[in-house]
């Protein structure tokens, strides 16, 4: 029991204090039970299942084998043959999450900065608009971009009717687009591609970036940069030496949070990423719910993804501490 609790109890008459204590205890009990049932137990289940064994042509059975973990690093045919397929998928999980979260934060930063300089009422309208856009699920957003990038209804159509496609063909750049997979013989095409994947992932977390940066940026004291300006510093120097250092921590925190959020993207990757750039999240799903019912290997992949993400967060935390210490 904490000191604060003691004080609280002492202030009440003993007759009232006992039921309140019981109520408090019961509340804590229920909350911990909920935590255990809904967080800890599933989590432990995933870890335990990751040691299970797949039965060919059926499902899987409980076991204690490290084969699934070994498969993740060298493939199922090791030692006859080695594949880094699953490491490659893990690599792309990080690749897309890092680039998309950085892009979202870097574009949200100037927007949020401008937003904080608007009138209060205008700020409120913008914030409500951005908050409401959070209610759209990943599936909706991906569907929207899918239509926007489609041949007959989206950007490629615009290229065609404005004559841009023909112009690209005339000047010879069309062949380059075909070589890098952004065109078929008839028209330009933007999906599936890295471009569409990163664009959609950044778009997905952009409102979060604004909302996470807003409190820190709205507390920025404008007199600091004004003072620097009056002392002759250029606008860029002010941004670099005054504004950015003072929001270093929220910037790092936001990027890390978005990064972790994006590590698990499923719909965007499965719709917009080319098969050579699929990620661990998609592979986990295809093992657990896909046609082969290999939950143990899916769980092992999930555990490894979790460990890798934790390591990243730990280093992020270290960097933060270092930055604070300076």
């Amino acid at each position, binding site marked *: 029991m904490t000191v604060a609790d003691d004080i609280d109890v002492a202030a009440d008459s003993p007759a009232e204090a006992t039921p309140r204590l019981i109520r408090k205890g019961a509340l804590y009990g229920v909350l911990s039970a909920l935590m255990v049932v809904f967080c800890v137990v599933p989590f432990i289940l995933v870890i335990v299942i990751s040691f299970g064994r797949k039965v*060919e042509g059926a499902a899987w059975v409980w076991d204690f084998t490290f084969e699934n973990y070994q498969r993740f690093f060298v*493939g199922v045919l090791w030692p006859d043959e080695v594949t880094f397929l699953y490491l490659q998928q893990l690599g792309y999980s990080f690749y897309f999450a890092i680039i998309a979260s950085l892009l979202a934060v870097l574009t949200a930063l100037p927007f949020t900065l401008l937003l904080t300089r608007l009138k209060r009422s205008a700020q409120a309208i913008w914030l409500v608009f951005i908050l409401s856009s959070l209610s759209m699920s990943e599936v909706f957003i991906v569907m929207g971009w899918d239509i926007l990038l489609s041949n007959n209804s989206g950007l490629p159509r615009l290229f065609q009717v404005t004559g841009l496609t023909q112009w690209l063909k005339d000047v010879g750049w069309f062949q380059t687009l075909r070589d890098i997979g952004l065109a078929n013989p008839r028209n330009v095409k933007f999906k599936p591609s890295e471009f569409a994947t990163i664009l959609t992932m950044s778009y997905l977390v952009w409102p979060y970036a604004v909302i996470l940066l807003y409190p820190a940026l709205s507390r920025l004291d404008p007199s600091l940069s004004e003072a620097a300006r009056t002392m002759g510093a250029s606008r860029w120097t002010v941004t670099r030496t005054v504004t950015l250092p003072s929001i270093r921590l929220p910037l790092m925190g936001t990027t890390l949070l978005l990064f972790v959020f994006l590590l698990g993207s499923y719909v965007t990757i499965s719709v917009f990423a080319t098969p050579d750039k699929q990620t661990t999240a998609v592979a986990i799903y295809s093992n657990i719910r896909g046609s082969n*019912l290999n939950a143990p290997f899916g769980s092992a992949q999930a555990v490894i993804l979790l460990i890798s993400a934790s390591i990243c967060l730990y280093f992020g935390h270290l960097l933060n501490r270092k930055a604070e210490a300076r």
Partner: protein
Amino acid sequence: MLKINRRTLLKSGVASVAASSLATPLIAQSRSLKVGSYGGYFEDSFKSFVYPEFTAATGIEVESVTQPNSADWLVTMQQAASAGTVPTDISLYGRQQMIKASRIGGLIAPLNVSAIANASNLDGYFVFEGPDGPQGVGAMSWFTAMVFNPNEVDTPASWADFWDTDKFEASLGLSNVNSSGLLDITSATFFDGEETMMSNEGILAIIDKVREIKPNVTLWWNAESQMEQGMKNGDVIGGQYYLDVANLMASDGFPIQPTFPKEGNLQDYGSWCLSEGSEKSEEAAEFMNFSCDPATQALMSRNIGTAPLVDQAMTDLTDEEFAFVSGSPSIKPAYEAYLDNETFIKESWDKMLAES
């Protein structure tokens, strides 16, 4: 004790269903059956055209349950079985999933085929023998066909045309699931069909051939709707897709046309299986018997677009109606290979797809 409880619960459930369906309270109270089928248009057609006929013929009410056409349903059934519940009395399984369910055990119950007289209309292949006797009766068949956009290309004569980069560069839509037929199609086109699928070397040779088609594929789809959108949007001008849906889309005016190339199209079929723990085995047998009736097979072909499992001659389907849902030659999936060599095929396939 538990059993009595469950029975009481089931009875009260049936009673409440009866109370809600005022039109036929007496029939509903006496007999009912929960039947699973793949959702959307497919299930709606069953509810509108097939189940009412069954109820009219037997007096058994059908409660329709939406189930996926994938191993997902096996996960659901396993979880339900360990919780002691039965989500459906009858579920619809593809052959591969049915064999898996049979091997996992405790999911599908043996059937009393003598109560399903009409099963004799079906080829013996369509009555699946599990370890403890028959466990599945064929329901309907479907084709995964070659489709193309008739506004953009001429009718391809062979699957091999899809490998022609001059015609199909970055334009095809194929399934990214290893067991969804591209291996069988490739094997039938360039190798010795099912026989090549039975060895690791054969699998690798087929996968090497599939690797060559990659520059022509723009969409590796995993959900049917992706391919549907791809064809409608013009992102895709050819690929593999379900024959019945392709025909429906074509009759709605979309630029898609299915065709039977000289190697044929992939034919798979679904089976009705009785859930372990269901107490409606008699009603289930009646339903399966009804389903095997040539008239019902024709009813499903007309209204759902599935291919009949009985000879066309047994049904009253016209040649035109038959061509809408079926064709020849047919390529049969190498079920045994997919089941016995599952992990090897999946990893080799995934590796091939993941190469840049």
